[in-house]
């Protein structure tokens, strides 16, 4: 509330600016982020999806795997707000539980990709030479294969399960982070403050961790957020193909797969998972863009 008040009328802003300049990096960041409506809307959706995923047991009106042969492909009504599917399961409950698979896959796979990609990228960017060459040629080879194709191949190789899908997506996204981290490290390492850090006697590992790493976190964070969106699509695609979440456990992707057979008779079976994927992906992209805009200008000024 108070944040919104600050940004609107100039008459209010002037006395506020006269107060001791104690914005704190976080508050200044929040002010820039919240000024963007899209980013704020995205954040709201992400938070709501997070609540759904964490509290699925309490929020979902029905057991997502309980069948009801008396209500097969029932149209939306007050009992089943989103209708039911081909074996009488409540679509709303499956959507709610599907959030867990989607967000879980998005976050876990990106966490894996960052955990692998960041150290490799730092090593390549900071050590240079043969190490850099070896890591980057491997990365180039992986980047030559389209992200989704690689994920499908890996998932098929590992065997169909949600966990394996997460690993497959994470491994496929790793090269993105290796590349980004390396480029960022090289850019920051050329800055004068790194030379100044060397001039006060910092050993190389300390320069990498204390001086370079904190300065590349914003870029990594932005890329991670955007990659979560891509990972959610990838999870849905793998589940659609039967390589992700296994039935009867719900996933938006596998729901779409069954729904495609009943598009004429029960369009709600396809609409809700589709809308969910769309909203989740849109929300993470909006947040990612908002983060980029809010984090970028700080460093340069």
């Amino acid at each position, binding site marked *: 509330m108070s944040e919104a008040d600050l940004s609107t009328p100039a008459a209010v802003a002037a006395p506020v600016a006269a107060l001791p300049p104690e914005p704190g990096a976080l508050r200044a960041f929040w002010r820039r982020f919240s000024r963007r409506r899209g980013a704020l809307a995205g954040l709201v959706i992400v938070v709501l999806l997070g609540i759904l995923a964490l509290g699925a047991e309490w929020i979902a009106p029905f057991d997502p795997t309980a069948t009801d042969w008396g209500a097969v492909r029932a149209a939306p009504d007050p009992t089943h707000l989103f209708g039911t599917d081909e074996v009488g399961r409540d679509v709303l409950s499956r959507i709610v539980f599907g959030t867990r698979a989607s967000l879980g896959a998005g976050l876990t796979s990106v966490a894996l990709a960052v955990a692998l990609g960041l150290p490799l990228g730092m090593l390549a960017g900071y050590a240079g030479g043969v190490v850099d060459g070896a890591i980057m040629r491997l990365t180039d080879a992986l980047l030559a294969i389209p992200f989704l194709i690689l994920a499908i191949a890996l998932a098929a190789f590992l065997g169909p399960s949600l966990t394996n899908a997460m690993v497959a997506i994470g491994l496929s996204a790793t090269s993105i982070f290796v590349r980004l981290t390396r480029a960022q490290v090289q850019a920051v390492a050329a800055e*004068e403050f790194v030379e100044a850090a*060397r*001039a*006060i*006697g*910092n050993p190389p590992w300390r320069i990498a961790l204390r001086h370079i790493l904190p*300065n590349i976190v914003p870029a990594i964070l932005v890329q991670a957020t955007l990659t979560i969106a891509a990972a959610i699509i990838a999870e849905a695609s793998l589940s659609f193909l039967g390589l992700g979440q296994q039935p009867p456990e719900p996933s938006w992707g596998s729901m779409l797969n069954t729904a495609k057979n009943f598009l004429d008779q029960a369009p709600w079976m396809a609409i809700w998972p589709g809308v969910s994927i769309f909203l989740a992906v849109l929300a993470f992209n909006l947040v990612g863009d908002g983060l980029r805009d809010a984090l970028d200008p700080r*460093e340069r*000024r």
Partner: protein
Amino acid sequence: MSDSPPLLDVRDLAVAFDTDGGTVRAVNGVAYGLREGETLGIVGESGSGKSVHVLAMLGLVPRPPGRITGGQVLFQGRDLLALPERHLRRVRGAEIGMVFQDPMSSLNPAMTVGAQIAEPLRLHRGLDGRSARARARDLLDLVRIPDAARRLDHYPHEFSGGQRQRVMIAIGLACRPKLLIADEATTALDVTVQAEIIALVQDLKREIGMAIIWITHDLGVVAGIADTVQVMYAGRIVERGPVEAVFSDPRNAYTLGLLRSLPDLTRGRAGRRRLRQIEGSPPDMRFSPPGDPFAPRNPFATPRCRIEAPPLAQVAGSVPGHLAAAWYDLPALLAQGAGR
């Protein structure tokens, strides 16, 4: 000079860079000494080797493409060039502090100022967080930043340019070094701020007593701060001596050129003269033809200048320690009316 061994003794230091276009010989046999507590101003244009040679002393020249091709740098009797990197790290920031040119880019934007001042103390003095912080606050006080305790938690972008340079000086002085090297430390600042920083450094020198190497291309700054001035051109020292002697009685044509390109505000209206520029441009350091590198731009050059590089030698008829590299006799030529 004095009987005690100098704090710093640079002997025939030479640095080269390997580039695609050939080897650039950036520093060619620089030799000089620095006493404890002495302030040395090093003047020269870009590419004169003034910055590179101090970076080389501290092992901060990136290798490759840089290469130290010869010489010794004795600091308190130890040859810095022969020290392994691990030992050299204990000299950097502890015994030799360094302040860089651009205070906007030489502080880490993602670290509080307090943490950055505390860093050398934690690295070299092994202080824990709390005592390093207390020292950092004292240091901010020392460089006259008001409200030090609160400012410790601020980030560099919350400081003005002059304040940031004060912070850099605080970092440089944190471990009470014997030598502070300031590489163009006031060049990026406004003139008024520049004057403040110079006044600060002079105060600190009185309080702490460290020796200073002040690298600049601004002769006015040198006049204000240094005991000794050293003029560099094309990787060599062309003239060196006590500030008054060099400024009043320059013996190298390049020094004279630098002095003539400055306005003299003390002369008043009557003494006004046209400012002179030095014709031509600095030599391409990939090729080192024989002779004095300044000869092609030098109106006083003699035939010998083009054949043989002059050694740096004591100047006849000036104070001891006034050295110049010249085959010609500049005062005599000026008296004859040459180079007007």
